């Protein structure tokens, strides 16, 4: 029985991180926006949704929506400096901003509960299921979200919008010369990515029912980066694959520690050391990741009909 519970937990976390990886991938792999503050979307989505649920008491779908909306808004704010800042400066700015957000969550206890965080977060449809079967329901909920977002993002990336976004990544000057308002397009991409990240945050908060600033340290952003670097940028399947690999590695090494009699501290260091090495190795030797970006092939089918 415990094994099944563990797998359900693992898959649920993979799903949540899959959403985060797809969100980051949309920014990095599609729009070419190097975001080192991705955890901010996670944090804002989680806190907004859980605070709306615990302090304001509105129905849960609205809490989730609120989390997504606020994260989307944050994405909009983050997109504003992209016009004037070069990639590496903007990356540093996002890192700094995400940490400021976390410090606000840590210090403004009257709003966020400070270091104690938000507790007893209600769970959707709790009353419908027994305590044993609820995790399975939640897993299904998360997986449905992952599928929906996967299809939505695929639609977006195959659309004219997606075409514009990809060209901004490769050659922004060309886009400008073709009359595209690149600032607006980047803005829209960031809002979309923000909303997906916010959804992940809300799902996370209502799953483990207790969040604190400790859940949103910068290391989370780097984990998500490892996912898209290993899995493959520029395509959504790669993001999910990366989430599977990294999260599997992350969670399973926690359990191996029990059998290999190494202290949790040592296991944690080893785990992160390997993640760092993976990032280095993949960028150096296989920068496209495991799943490469595919050529847009649908025109081929038309060729047959001509």
């Amino acid at each position, binding site marked *: 029985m415990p094994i099944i519970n563990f797998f359900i937990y693992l898959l649920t976390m993979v799903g949540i991180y899959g959403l985060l990886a797809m969100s980051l991938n949309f920014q990095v792999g599609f729009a070419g926006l190097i975001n080192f503050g991705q955890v901010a979307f996670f944090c804002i989505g989680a806190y907004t949704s859980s605070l709306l649920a615990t302090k304001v008491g509105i129905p849960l779908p609205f809490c989730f929506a609120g989390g997504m909306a606020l994260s989307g808004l944050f994405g909009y704010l983050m997109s504003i400096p992209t016009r004037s800042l070069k990639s590496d400066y903007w990356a540093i700015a996002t890192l700094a901003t995400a940490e400021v957000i976390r410090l606000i969550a840590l210090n403004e206890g009257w709003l966020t509960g400070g270091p104690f965080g938000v507790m007893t977060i209600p769970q959707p449809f709790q009353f419908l299921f027994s305590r044993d079967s609820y995790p399975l329901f939640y897993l299904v909920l998360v997986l449905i979200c992952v599928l929906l977002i996967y299809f939505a993002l695929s639609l977006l990336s195959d659309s004219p919008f997606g*075409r514009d976004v*990809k060209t901004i990544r490769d050659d922004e000057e*060309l886009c400008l*010369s*073709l009359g595209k308002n690149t600032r607006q*397009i980047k803005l829209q991409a960031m809002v979309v990515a923000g909303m997906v990240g916010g959804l992940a945050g809300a799902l996370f908060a209502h799953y483990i029912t207790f969040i604190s600033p400790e859940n949103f340290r910068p290391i989370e952003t780097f984990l998500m980066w490892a996912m898209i670097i290993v899995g493959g940028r520029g395509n959504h399947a790669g993001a999910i694959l990366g989430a599977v690999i990294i999260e599997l590695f992350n969670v399973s090494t926690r359990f191996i520690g029990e059998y290999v009699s190494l202290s949790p501290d040592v296991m944690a260091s080893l785990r992160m050391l390997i993640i760092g090495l993976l990032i280095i190795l993949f960028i150096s030797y296989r920068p496209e990741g495991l799943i490469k970006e595919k050529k847009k092939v649908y025109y081929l089918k038309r060729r047959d009909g001509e």
Partner: protein
Amino acid sequence: MLKIKDLQKNFGSLRALDRVSLEVEGDSIFGLIGPNGSGKTTLFNVVSGFYEKDGGEILFKGERVDGLTPDGIARKGLCRTFQIAKAPEKLTVLENMMLAAKEQHGENPFSALFTRRRTARVERENLDRAMELLEVLQLVDLKNEYAGDLSGGQKKLLSLGRVFMLQPDMILLDEPTAGVNPTLTMQLMKAIKELQQREHKSVFIIEHSMKVISSICDKVYVLNFGKKMAEGTPAEIQKNEKVLEAYLGGA
């Protein structure tokens, strides 16, 4: 259609453009020549909004366009190509053409997700027009190749096709035949002339080859050291002593 008055652009103490004034009419092909470093590409960059001017006025279709963003100027109908042809690696030739299409739908997330049928219809229309243009440019067989894999000359043809997809009122072509072999050059010239006559656009070309200039241009401006040195028909320019001196004796 395009009126430039006393345009000034400085790089530090260097006067790249020194009070240049010229006019380009509609439904014709004008040329811009001059030795290297005379300011031709700088002129294009300022007019198309990629560089900021230091003085002067730019009027397009009677409206002031100096100070607008490059994409804003392009949307007004004044479009350009680049000296080094741009070919984004991860996009196919056909996608490049579709990218440039003037009337597109689905270019924002909302319409991309929720108005898919209309998006698909407009895409199909643009696809037809793109294929037509590719025929004229003889690039049809390469339509599903990555733009980055094309030869230099083919990239230039693609740039031309892209800018015509924009259906602009005026096109600034920056050295469209530079680095292109003679056969392809003929093809390009033919394509430019054919497209211009078909669509009645106004074209302003930067060129080094007098052959190209004399075969397709209605009028030519000559720049030297950032100043307008001469203007006239290709025949007049070729006989102009100052121009000959600049090319043979000068920079």
